[in-house]
């Protein structure tokens, strides 16, 4: 994971910086100065990292940062990671399609029931509590404008 992730990041940065530097050729110097000053060394450093990953040592350098858990089998980690990402993506899709007021209680309840395996009573009470906080704080108190979901807009219900 570390080498592949590092390679993906470094390649992504190389492409990004290369595109950035190339784009500046058509800009006036005022707009191009900073992207050039940043883009050129960024491209070179990313290239160095790519070469390091491909041909250098595989030693992992520890960042003084949050570390992912390593005490589970790799297959379990991969499965759970993909599942967690699917839930996040699903929540995003639910917000866009159904809108926040529907997506929030739906996600909380489904998450508690499906991966969480919680009891019906707890799941319902917890969902209602989260929805009440969401509605009370963001809708009633802060008056944040949450738009209807695309399904509501398309069908005209709401």
């Amino acid at each position, binding site marked *: 994971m570390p080498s592949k992730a*590092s390679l*993906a990041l*470094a390649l992504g940065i190389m492409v990004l910086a290369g595109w*950035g530097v190339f784009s500046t050729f058509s*800009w006036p110097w005022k707009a191009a100065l900073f992207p050039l000053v940043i883009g050129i060394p*960024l491209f070179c450093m990313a290239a160095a990292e790519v070469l390091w990953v491909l041909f250098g040592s595989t030693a992992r350098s520890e960042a003084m940062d*949050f570390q992912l858990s390593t005490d589970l089998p790799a297959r379990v980690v991969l499965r759970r990671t993909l599942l967690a990402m699917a839930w*996040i993506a699903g929540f995003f899709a639910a917000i866009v399609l159904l809108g926040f007021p529907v997506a929030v209680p739906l996600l909380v309840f489904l998450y508690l029931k499906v991966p969480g395996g919680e009891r019906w009573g707890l799941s319902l009470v917890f969902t209602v509590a989260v929805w009440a906080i969401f509605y009370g704080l963001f809708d009633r108190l802060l008056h944040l404008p949450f738009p209807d979901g695309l399904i509501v807009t398309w069908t005209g219900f709401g």
Partner: protein
Amino acid sequence: MIEAFVEGLVLVLQWKAFAFMLLGIGLGFWVGLLPGLGGATTLALMLPFIYTMQPVEAFAFLLGMHAVVATTGDITSVLFGVPGEATSAATILDGYAMTKKGEAGRALGAALASSLVGALVGAFALALAIPVVRPLVLTFGSPELFMLAIVGLAFIASLSAQGGRGMLRGFLAGGLGLFVATVGQDPQAGIARFTLDTLYLWQGLDLVPVLVGIFAIPEIVDLAVRGSSIAGDRPQGRLGRGALEGVKDTFRHFGLTIRCSLIGTFIGIMPGLGGSVAQWIAYGHATQSAKNAQELEGFGAGDVRGVLGPGAANNSKEGGSLIPTVAFGVPGSTSMAILLGGFFLMGLVPGPDMLTTHLVVTFSMVWTIVIANVITVGVCFLFLNRLAALSAVRGQLLIPVILVLVFIGSYTANNHYGDLIVTLVFGAIGYLMVGAGWPRAPFVLGLVLGKIAENYLYISVARYGAAWLARPVVLVLIGVALVVIVYPLVQARRARTRKGAHA
């Protein structure tokens, strides 16, 4: 100056600012206790909620929350051997050992009392530093301020990961942050840069969705991967009546507590080092207080001095790290980099203004650190036994709540679905960075400093041409940046040579 100092206190004690501070303390209290949620992440999550606040209220809320995270983080370290925060990991060594010996109350008393002493020392250092750094900051022009941004980035990039490889990744992360900051309409010529022909990107990437994504998403995924109760399956027990003994220990070893507080403050001032480093250096210093080999062996097996050192240092570093953040716009840690984002959301620019026009706001920060810690330590002592139960919150209950906060938090930045996409994209980047062992702090710093660094660079070049590079302070700062980059490499090389000689 004295007037501003007193006015800072008065502003913090006004009902609205005080209420926000209490809210922040309440949040920070939980965040510190729960191992699955980091202080920096919560700071990022709470940034969207400060838009409507006044600066003093916003900093009372954010700093009140952040100032207590390390204090309550020690509680989980002592009780369960699980650090509530990365900054409270060193407390486990002797704190958890004391718990296993049946001295949990004493360890907690020592951790809390030393945390309070540390926080007071850090806040005192911040207050004391303001008149000292003010004349220095006021002499700086655009070239010097641009170079300061580069020095800050060099510090955080070179020190937030190990060795040459780590440094390269640190600079890559920092450079990426600076690059991402250029997205949007350029302030000088009005050119739309890297906007992908979308109107949403014309104003540039908002800090909040980016920070929320890069910090919260990796932690949520990891919490889901672990799949257990948040503090693991460790048993909870009564804490006993030793807490008072722990407080007495703090005063029995008062010299050590003060020295470790000063170590924490000093490390806090050094950009890029942060609390994770402070606690270990303080722990190292605490072990040096052993008078003989027998006493030394007691460290790691439940010596209260091993709790006092890190406990004091990880709190005092907050005041210390605010000094470069407020005075130079160079944050001392990841959390401070996020807090720097809060400055910009409030329309405040760190540097001379914070020490002149907004001096009262700066002093209100000092008071917030002091008051927040006094309240937290008091509450902890009152509810010591019940606190143990809090760490048993199941991950399954926490994840949907954090996800709701993530999406609402990022959406409120611009009330646009684009914010959610930005959060997801930077969540993926953050996850890759954590997985690859790349530090995220330089990225945040680059992103936060990008716009002002570009402005300073443009003014420097437009006003002085290439001559800005020859200004004395600029030359000194270039030298400092080079030393910051080269010194860790030389040190690593020396260590390798010594290792080779011993083998």
